[in-house]
């Protein structure tokens, strides 16, 4: 009887240790349950989604810059280029880098020989050492096209009503790139083709879109 009583009294003191083990286990389980890295990942995903929305905003408004200039056709290209420069400044103030190349090609309904005017805006954030624009076997060459600068080239010829592929080759300190711009040429209409190769980079995400739109003007 004495022995049993002693064991009973002796084990009461260990309640503290047993309780502490239970509390520690609960705390560890709670901490493991709150997965902060998963929440951080979700936040990054949301931020990337938000930047994608902003990129879509710039993409849509770039085309809008062309559309709202419809009544003053001579301003269409300038307004697009000015909008792209503006959008880049706005994004850079948010530590987001908007870069790319904007190409516009216009031609007026007239009699042969037809004239196609091409403008290329360098927004790559670096100089183009060489820029070659080739339309229907004719090439216009440019050297040292600095960042933010736009250059123009005119092509004339007896073009047929069909889709022509214009190539825009440029060389920078980072890469050699060739862009293919589809120009749906129609001898009975005046048209403007906009080609944009845009990218939006931040420390959270990277977006890129290459597209072209043609408008009857």
């Amino acid at each position, binding site marked *: 009887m004495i022995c049993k009583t002693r064991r009973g009294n002796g084990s009461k003191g260990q309640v503290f240790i047993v309780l502490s083990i239970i509390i520690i286990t609960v*705390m560890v389980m709670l901490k493991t349950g709150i997965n902060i890295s998963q929440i951080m990942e979700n936040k990054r995903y949301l931020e990337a989604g938000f930047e994608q929305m902003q990129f879509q905003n710039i993409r849509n408004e770039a085309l*809008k*810059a062309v559309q*709202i200039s419809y009544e003053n056709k001579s301003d269409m290209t300038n*307004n697009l280029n000015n909008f792209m420069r503006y959008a880049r400044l706005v994004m850079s103030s948010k530590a987001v880098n908007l870069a790319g190349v904007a190409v516009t090609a216009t031609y007026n309904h007239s009699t042969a020989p037809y004239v196609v005017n091409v403008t290329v805006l360098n927004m790559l954030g670096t100089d183009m050492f060489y820029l070659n624009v080739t339309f229907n076997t004719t090439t216009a060459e440019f050297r040292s096209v600095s960042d933010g600068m736009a250059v123009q080239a005119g092509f004339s010829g007896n073009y047929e009503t069909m889709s022509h592929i214009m190539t825009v080759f440029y060389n920078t300190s980072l890469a050699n790139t060739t862009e293919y711009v589809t120009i749906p040429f129609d001898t009975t209409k005046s048209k403007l083709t906009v080609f944009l190769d845009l990218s939006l980079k931040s420390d959270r995400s990277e977006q890129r879109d290459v597209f072209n739109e043609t408008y009857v003007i």
Partner: protein
Amino acid sequence: MDETSEVAAARGYDSMKKKSSKGISKTFESIVAILSMMTVFIIYFSAKQTMPDLEIINREMKAFSAMKTLVESNDFRQWVLANDTQTLENKIMSLMPSDTNYEIVVCQLDCAKPSVTSERMFSASYIIAGDVKDFRPRQVVLYMWS
């Protein structure tokens, strides 16, 4: 003192000695328990990990979506170019939660922040190129604070 009372006294002394040693061991065990819990707290919970605030990014996305919805109507561009921030605020507020304070600023590049002292201020901006026959790029910045 007879032999029986001597034995009883000795037993009483032994009992007191045992009770005292039990008290010491209980104190020791409770100290061990407290120390082990403190050790776990310090080692496991001391690393600073701030909980990311998802509420801000959610509000920013909501504000952006509200402006995107409004830009579908042509009036939005007119309000922006006319710098009619009151109408813009009224329209946007109907699409946003009511527990946040708002202020709209229409600007070109340098956008003035509202003169509000709040640590939880955030914003969403929407860029427009202009309106028909009126090329004037602007950004609409919706500042929010709570």
